[in-house]
């Protein structure tokens, strides 16, 4: 009994001390609080950390110029571990306890989608990169407080498909995607639909699940189907493995990818990555990106990845909106965000009021050749 009492006391003490430390003391007079919800420690943590760095860079630049409306920005970041429940708690905490004026959101849809109805209820806007369309629209219309700042999954898939069909003149494809991941599924399906609609053929579809590391079985079947190209829209580590195993087994045809074929893919896959074409949100030899990357590298000592750009642009969009709104009222800020017409590093971002997604943002097609990225050009989502 005595030991039990000791433990209970210990637990309560731990509790209270930590609880005390964790209370965020609210906004100072000279501060604007912006929330940031990201995965910082689980499977997509690279994205979350990059996104956060991009946001911080933008905030620092703005603060150096005097801040917004005379106040400095302070970013409060919470880790979701990629878990929707954590994200919901984080959002509630940011809105109710920390009282942020807006939230910058994650680039994953499994977290974005549950935030939508809550943002609608609590009326604090969320700007993020959750590509699944259900995070920004629902059957009855648009989620008023959610904004997506990059092309959706299907737009990305269609850009890739139309490039493959029209520029590379390929028509017989194999597809291998992660059936347990909505990002992957939401690219595979529109890709296949577009190809079929334009007279191409899908010879074989293979799937894998999260955590799979052996693709020998699928690669063998793809090899035997003899496609002209293979579409591989997964997360970067799966893409690298599939590339290595496909090449290892003798499949040398072009690989068509998604925006998860960028850094650090070449480092992970080596020469197996060659002969891959994929749409990306950035390219190192286009001036506006180089400029950004220099600043980012100077500040963080690392190479900027696409999610850093997203965070950066999102923070800037928010800043413009707050300036336009003239006051720190989340609803006014939301209205101002809707009016955005921003020349971001990623491109021109202007929201379609019915979907809160950008109208026809371009992506850049890249090719991997000699273990380097080669820029092929900017492409818009096809209209047909």
């Amino acid at each position: 009994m005595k030991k039990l009492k000791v433990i209970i006391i210990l637990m309560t003490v731990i509790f209270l001390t930590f609880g005390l430390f964790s209370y965020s003391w609210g906004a100072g007079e000279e501060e604007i609080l912006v929330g940031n919800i990201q995965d910082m420690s689980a499977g997509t943590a690279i994205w979350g950390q990059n996104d956060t760095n991009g946001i911080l860079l933008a905030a620092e630049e703005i603060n150096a110029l005097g801040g917004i409306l005379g106040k400095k920005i302070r970013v409060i970041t919470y880790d979701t571990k990629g878990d929707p429940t954590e994200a919901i708690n984080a959002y509630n905490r940011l809105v109710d306890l920390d009282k942020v004026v807006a939230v910058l959101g994650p680039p994953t849809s499994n977290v974005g989608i549950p935030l939508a109805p809550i943002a609608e209820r609590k009326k604090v806007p969320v700007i993020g990169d959750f590509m699944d369309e259900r995070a920004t629209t629902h059957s009855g219309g648009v989620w008023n407080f959610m904004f997506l700042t990059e092309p959706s999954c299907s737009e990305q898939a269609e850009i890739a498909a139309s490039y493959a069909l029209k520029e590379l003149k390929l028509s017989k494809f194999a597809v291998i995607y992660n059936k347990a991941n909505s990002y992957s599924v939401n690219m595979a399906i529109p890709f296949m639909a577009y190809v079929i609609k334009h007279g191409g053929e899908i010879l074989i579809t293979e799937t894998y699940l999260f955590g799979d590391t052996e693709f020998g079985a699928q690669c063998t079947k793809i090899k035997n189907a003899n496609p002209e190209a293979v579409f591989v829209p997964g997360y970067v580590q799966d893409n690298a493995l599939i590339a290595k195993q496909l090449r290892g087994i003798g499949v040398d045809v072009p690989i068509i990818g998604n925006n998860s074929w960028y850094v650090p893919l070449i480092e992970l896959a080596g020469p197996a990555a060659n002969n891959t074409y994929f749409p990306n949100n950035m390219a190192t030899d286009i001036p506006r990106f180089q400029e950004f990357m220099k600043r980012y590298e100077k500040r963080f000592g690392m190479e900027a990845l696409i999610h850093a750009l997203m965070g950066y642009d999102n923070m800037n969009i928010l800043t413009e909106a707050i300036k336009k709104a003239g006051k720190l009222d989340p609803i006014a800020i939301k209205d101002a965000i809707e009016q955005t017409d921003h020349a971001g590093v990623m491109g021109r971002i202007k929201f379609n009021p019915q979907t809160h997604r950008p109208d026809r943002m371009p992506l850049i097609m890249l090719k991997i050749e000699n273990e380097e990225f080669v820029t092929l050009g900017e492409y818009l989502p096809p209209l047909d």
Partner: protein
Amino acid sequence: MKAGLLLRNVKKELEVFLQQLLNGLSSGGVYALMAVGFGLIYNVLKFSNFSHGGVMLIGCYTAYFAFKIFHSSLFLTLLFGAISGGFCAVIFEKLAIAPLRKRNAPKVYFFVNSINGGLLAEYLIVATVGVFFHTFPDFLGTANINIRQISFSKLNLTMFTISLITLFGLMWYLYKTKSGRAIRAVACDINTASLMGVDVNRVISLTFFVSGLLGGLSGVFLGISYTIYPQLGKMIVKGWMASVIGGLGSLLGPVVGGILLGVLETFLTAYIGSSFTPILEFIILLMFLLIRPQGIAGIIVEEKV
């Protein structure tokens, strides 16, 4: 004419079959190595040690850093990973197992704390090294050996051979050395062994060290074949399944189980698709457990009255 076509088709099917078999053996080898390290602890302390995944993870990362700093060869890197795995396992033992043993905790708690141990390793890596992926360079080049239409990866072959050598080494150690015999004695009956003068505490730490060596080695293998990332430890689940299928009561069991699991998974994926594989795996597992619950190579541990 038709006979010729038929023969060619059969030959092609056979080649595909053999290729898949090789794929299966390659992943099976990795599972087997994991399972043996796992099974060793099970035999001695009678619980499923989920922290083995954490040991694999730490072994892999330390080997990676050793490589980065010293540019070691394949063998040295493996050695480094194995040894750091061994130490990691002992640290875990001191932190989470010894206190429980001292208090005569029920076996289940060892299990629970081992899960925590594995998680601790993962979160340690996330907090210190960070979440970016890394890879080992291609130690042996990416070229595959191609015999007719079937390709083996040189790396897989090397790893398979090293695993085999390690397993023989382990058997020699357990059966031919004094400390190995001590481990087997404790595995047989912990109380009697201590009555016979065996320093049980030391033996247990030793067992963890040996299992850690195996774990670190598996970790580096996984890192080489795939990628180095903090969730690497989660592969231990496959090791667990392999151990149970193969039979937990012996050393051979996990090996057989691992290879079988690898081959089974590959064939299931090849012939019915990866999405259906867990479904069939479950059904097969269920049938297995009902018909031969001691595992393939195992011995039924009779419940004592």
